[in-house]
C-alpha cells in the first residue's frame, strides 16, 4: 500500500524519515488499519495523548508502516472509548491496555481489559498521562489481584518466576503452566519498571529531553538518542551537518556490534559453553574501551544530541577504529567456526524456541527476531536515511525462526556492521558536527524512526510553546516481540527458557516506560 492509496487527507512531515500524518474518524480508523494489514503493512506503535487543553479531546494515535514509509493516524476521541484494532493487529493488545491505564480511554470490544502498566501504586480512576494529573507526587496505593489465566488438568502445575530473576537481568514476572518439564503455557506480567518516563518528558525542554531519551533502554541508548534527535529536528525543520549524520551511523553500528557480541557470548554460556562468554565479552570490552577513549562514554550515552553529535573523531581515531575492525573481523570469524562446529551447542540451538514465519507475520514480530523468522524488515535497507542511503545495507534474514536462526542473524549482522563501519570511516565527510537548533513552534509534530540493534525504535513528538515537550511517546520493538516469546516457548522444556529468552533479549525498561 502506498500513501496515494489512502482516501483521507495526509500531510507529509518534514525530516529525515518518510512519514505522513492525518486525522481520521472512527470508521476510517478501522478501515485503514484493515487495508494496511491486507497489503502486508505493520503496526509500529499505538499510543494516546491528552489534547483537551487544545480543544481536541483525547487523541489515539497509530503509526503504520506501508511501502512508502510511515503513516501516523490520529483518531480524536470525544468520550472515553474508541474502536479496538487488536483483531487486525494483535500487537495492539498490550498497547491498548497500557493506553487505558495511562490515559483512561479504552478500546471498545477488546476482550482483555486487565490493567497492564498499572499495578497497585495508583488508583484505577486516575490517569498519569492526563494533563490534570500531578505526576510529581506519590498516589494512594490501590491493591489489586492480577487474574492470570490458569491451565487446569491432570499433572499441570504452575511455576511463578520473578519479578526478581536469578540472573543479572531486568525484573518481570513469568507464569509457566507446565506438565512435567514441558511448557503448556507462558503468561508474562510486565510493568515492574514503570517509572513514569512519558510523564517526565512533559516537564522537559526539547534540549533536556535528549538525556532522558538516552536512558529509556540503556542498551539502546544510541538508537533512542538518534530517534529522539530525529523527531526534534523534524519538528524544527532542520537537518544536521552531513558529518554528524555519518558519525551517528558509526555510533549506531558500534552499539549493534557491542550488543550482538555480548548476546553471542551469553547464548553460548546459556547452552553450556562458558568459553564463548569469555571470548565474546572480551571482544565487547575492547569495543567499549575504545568507545570511552574516542567518544567519551563506554556505551556512547549522550553522544547524539538534537542538531548533531557531541563527539568528533580525528584522523588518529579513524585509523585506530579501522585497525580494531580488522582484529574484530578475524576474531569473530574464528569464533563463528567454533560455534558452527560445536555439536553440543548446535543441539541446544537448533529447534529451540521456534517462531514460524506464519506466526511471526500474524502477530507482528519485528526487528532482529523478526528477521530470523523471515520478516524482512530493516529500516536501514528499506527506508534508509542519510548516510544509509549510500551504504547499500544488506539485510540478514533466516527462515527457521529458532534460537539457531537468531544466532545466525546476529553473526551475519555483526559482519555487515563491520563492513558498514569500514565504509563510514573511509568516507566520513568533513565539516561541522552540530548545527544550532532553530526555535521550534508549539503544537508541531515530529517523528524519529531508527533501526536499533533490537529492532525499530520509534519516537513521536508533539511540541508545546517555548521549546517544550507537550507529549512524547518512545516505542520499543520489545512491545511487539514480548508476546511472541509466550508462543516461542510452547512445547519446549523449562530449562530451555533462559536460552530462548536470551535469544530474543527484549527490553523491560523500554517497554515498561
Amino acid at each position, binding site marked *: 500500500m502506498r500513501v496515494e492509496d489512502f482516501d483521507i487527507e495526509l500531510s507529509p512531515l518534514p525530516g529525515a524519515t518518510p512519514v505522513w500524518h492525518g486525522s481520521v474518524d472512527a470508521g476510517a480508523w478501522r478501515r485503514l488499519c484493515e487495508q494496511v494489514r491486507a497489503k502486508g503493512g505493520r503496526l509500529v506503535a499505538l499510543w494516546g495523548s491528552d489534547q483537551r487543553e487544545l480543544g481536541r479531546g483525547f487523541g489515539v494515535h497509530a503509526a503504520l508502516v506501508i511501502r512508502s514509509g510511515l503513516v501516523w493516524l490520529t483518531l480524536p476521541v470525544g468520550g472515553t472509548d474508541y474502536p479496538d484494532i487488536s483483531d487486525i493487529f494483535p500487537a495492539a493488545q498490550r498497547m491498548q491496555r497500557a493506553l487505558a491505564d495511562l490515559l483512561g480511554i479504552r478500546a471498545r470490544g477488546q476482550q482483555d481489559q486487565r490493567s497492564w502498566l498499572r499495578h497497585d501504586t495508583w488508583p484505577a480512576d486516575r490517569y498519569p498521562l492526563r494533563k490534570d494529573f500531578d505526576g510529581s507526587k506519590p498516589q494512594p496505593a490501590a491493591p489489586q489481584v492480577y487474574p492470570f489465566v490458569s491451565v487446569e488438568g491432570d499433572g499441570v502445575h504452575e511455576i511463578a518466576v520473578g519479578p526478581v530473576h536469578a540472573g543479572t537481568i531486568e525484573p518481570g514476572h513469568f507464569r509457566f503452566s507446565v506438565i512435567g518439564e514441558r511448557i503448556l503455557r507462558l503468561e508474562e506480567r510486565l510493568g515492574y519498571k514503570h517509572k513514569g518516563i512519558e510523564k517526565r518528558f512533559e516537564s522537559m525542554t526539547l534540549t533536556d529531553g535528549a538525556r532522558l531519551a538516552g*536512558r529509556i533502554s540503556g542498551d539502546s541508548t544510541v538508537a533512542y538518542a538518534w530517534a529522539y534527535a530525529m523527531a526534534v529536528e523534524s519538528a524544527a525543520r532542520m537537518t544536521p551537518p552531513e558529518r554528524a549524520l555519518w558519525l551517528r551511523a558509526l555510533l549506531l553500528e558500534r552499539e549493534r556490534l557491542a550488543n550482538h557480541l555480548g548476546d553471542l557470548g551469553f547464548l553460548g554460556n546459556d547452552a553450556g559453553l562458558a568459553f564463548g562468554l569469555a571470548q565474546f565479552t572480551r571482544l565487547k570490552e575492547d569495543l567499549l574501551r575504545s568507545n570511552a577513549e574516542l567518544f567519551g562514554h563506554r556505551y556512547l550515552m549522550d553522544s547524539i544530541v538534537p542538531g548533531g553529535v557531541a563527539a568528533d573523531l580525528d584522523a588518529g581515531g579513524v585509523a585506530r577504529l579501522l585497525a580494531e575492525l580488522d582484529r574484530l573481523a578475524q576474531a569473530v570469524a574464528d569464533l563463528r567456526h567454533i560455534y558452527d562446529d560445536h555439536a553440543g551447542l548446535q543441539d541446544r540451538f537448533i529447534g529451540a524456541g521456534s517462531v514460524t514465519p506464519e506466526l511471526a507475520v500474524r502477530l507482528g514480530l519485528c526487528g532482529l527476531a523478526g528477521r530470523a523468522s523471515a520478516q524482512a524488515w530493516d529500516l536501514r535497507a528499506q527506508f534508509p536515511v542519510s548516510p544509509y542511503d549510500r551504504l547499500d545495507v544488506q539485510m540478514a534474514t533466516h527462515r527457521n525462526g529458532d534460537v539457531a536462526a537468531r544466532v545466525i542473524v546476529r553473526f551475519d549482522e555483526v559482519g555487515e556492521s563491520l563492513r558498514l563501519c569500514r565504509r563510514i570511516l573511509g568516507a566520513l565527510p568533513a565539516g561541522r558536527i552540530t548545527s544550532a537548533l532553530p526555535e521550534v513552534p508549539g503544537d508541531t509534530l515530529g517523528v524519529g524512526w531508527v533501526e536499533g540493534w533490537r529492532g525499530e525504535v520509534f519516537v513521536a513528538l508533539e511540541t508545546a510553546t517555548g521549546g517544550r515537550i507537550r507529549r512524547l511517546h518512545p516505542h520499543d520493538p520489545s512491545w511487539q516481540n514480548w508476546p511472541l516469546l509466550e508462543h516461542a516457548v510452547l512445547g519446549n522444556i523449562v530449562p530451555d527458557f533462559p536460552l530462548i529468552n536470551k535469544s530474543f533479549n527484549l527490553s523491560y525498561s523500554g517497554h515498561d516506560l
Partner: protein
Amino acid sequence: MYKIIYQIIKTGIRTEPPPVSDEALRLTAQRLQKEVLDRFQGALAIRHVDAGSCNGCELEIHALTNPYYNLEGLGIHFVASPRHADLLLVTGPVSRHMEVALKRTYEAVPEPKLVVAVGDCGCTGGIFGESYASCGRIANVIPVDVAVPGCPPTPTRLMQGILTAIGSEREDRAAAQR
C-alpha cells in the same frame, strides 16, 4: 575441540594482573582480594537486584565478569538467590512497582548483610527523580551501605564500591566490639 583449545591458547590470559602499578583497576583488584580473603574467607556472594534501572548499569555489572575484570577470579560471585547472598548490588531508581519486591529481597538476605546502591539513579534518583511511579534513590526504600555514582559506573568504580562496603562493615564491627 582442538579449535577451542587453540583459541584459548591464542587468546592467553587477559585478566589484568593485580599489583604494582598504580593503575586504578589493578590496585583495586589486589586490595579487594585481600579484603575478601580476610573477611569472608575467600568468598563473597552478591545478589543483584534491578529495582527499575534503564538497564545501563546491568551492562556494567555483566562486564565485571568478563576476562579483563574477572571478578569471579577474586572469589566474588553472583548468586541466584538472596538467601545465598552477603551483599545486595541494587540498581535504580526504585520504581514503585518494585518497592515491595526490593524490600522482600532485602529481608531474605541473612545477617550480616551489605547493600551497594549502583549508579546515579540508585544514589539520587537521577534523571527519573521521585514521582507517582518512582521512589527515587535506593536509600529511600532499604538501608544502603555504599553508593556508587556514575551513569553507568564503570566496572572499576563498581569494584571500588564493593571494596568500600566490605571495609565499612569491618569498621562497624570493630566499633561495636570496642
